[in-house]
């Protein structure tokens, strides 16, 4: 419990720090600035992974709970949604395919040569990953 509180406290402090930077003109959302700051602190060893690991795991597992209240707001948006349903769905589908395939194909191209050497060096463990 104490472990969780420390982790949650740290996540909140980094979020508030990010918000502060955002309010002082950095045009990136406070949460993302907090994420970058925490990443940096972990990389520099200022914060240890075990201090935040459990709280972060819990928050990420139950993130859906946190966006329920905003989603309930759809109840006021019925008219906009039904008028724009086609644009929303087509744009979603087109963009989903574009991102998935461009990222995947770029990955196949850029990560290709290394895969060959990785398969050669790891040998028997390679088929393991195919499952």
């Amino acid at each position, binding site marked *: 419990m104490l472990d969780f509180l420390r982790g949650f406290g740290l996540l909140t402090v980094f979020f508030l720090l990010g918000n502060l930077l955002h309010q002082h003109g950095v*045009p990136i959302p406070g949460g993302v600035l907090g*994420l970058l700051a925490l990443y940096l602190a972990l990389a520099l060893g200022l914060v240890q992974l075990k201090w*935040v690991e459990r709280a972060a795991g819990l928050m990420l597992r139950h993130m*859906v709970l946190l966006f329920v*209240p905003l989603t309930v707001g759809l109840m006021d948006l019925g008219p906009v949604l039904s008028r724009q349903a086609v644009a929303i769905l*087509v744009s979603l589908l087109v963009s*989903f395919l574009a991102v998935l395939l*461009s*990222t995947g194909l770029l*990955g196949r191209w850029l990560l290709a040569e290394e895969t060959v050497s990785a398969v050669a060096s790891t040998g028997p463990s390679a088929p393991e990953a195919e499952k």
Partner: protein
Amino acid sequence: MISLAEIVRTPAFSIVLTVSCYAVALALHRRWRAVPPIVAACVPIIAVLLLLREPYAAYNRGGDLLTWLLGPATVALAVPMYRQGKFLRPSLPRLALIVFAGSLVGMVTAGGTAWLLGAPRSVVLSAVPKSVTTPIAIEVCRELNGIPQITIAMVILAGVLGATFGPLLLRLVGVGEDRSVGAAVGTSSHGIGTASLVRHSERQASASSWAMAAAGVFTSILAALLALLLR
């Protein structure tokens, strides 16, 4: 004597209602995998509010407290990103390039398609962050003056599409290598896609969770540039 209406309007009522509907939704999801928890949680809440003739704004006074927690939850993404980054170190610069390109493609194609179909500006801008994880997508949508609810609906659909068809579609175009599959699913379908990979390949899931956090960071930086252009 406190009336029922007064109890209903307290923030505590909203929170208790939300948390209990979420708990029931999780139980339903555990039994029937096809039921998305977000839908199963929201439908009964909307039904209760409509039955009690309570406006959304009254419910959201308590809801706002839960929404606020999305901030620390965004910060929490640094943990999987840092942890997976250690495993992926040799390919990290190339992975970053791939995810950056994918994020840019996502923003341009989502906004562009909605715009070509004649959607109003607020809907076009709501579509822009649709590939990234919900808390970041909401923030980016707000920065762009979009409608967060539209963004959320699109984010969830993108996640479900990627979790269901992502690896299959990638195999059709000859992408089967673990890090590429992970990067593609994480960039296009964030946490929902990543969760679906966990079950069959740890290497894919690791690349995917790194990509999902990185895509969120890149998209918010690109959106800041877009906001400058729109000003």
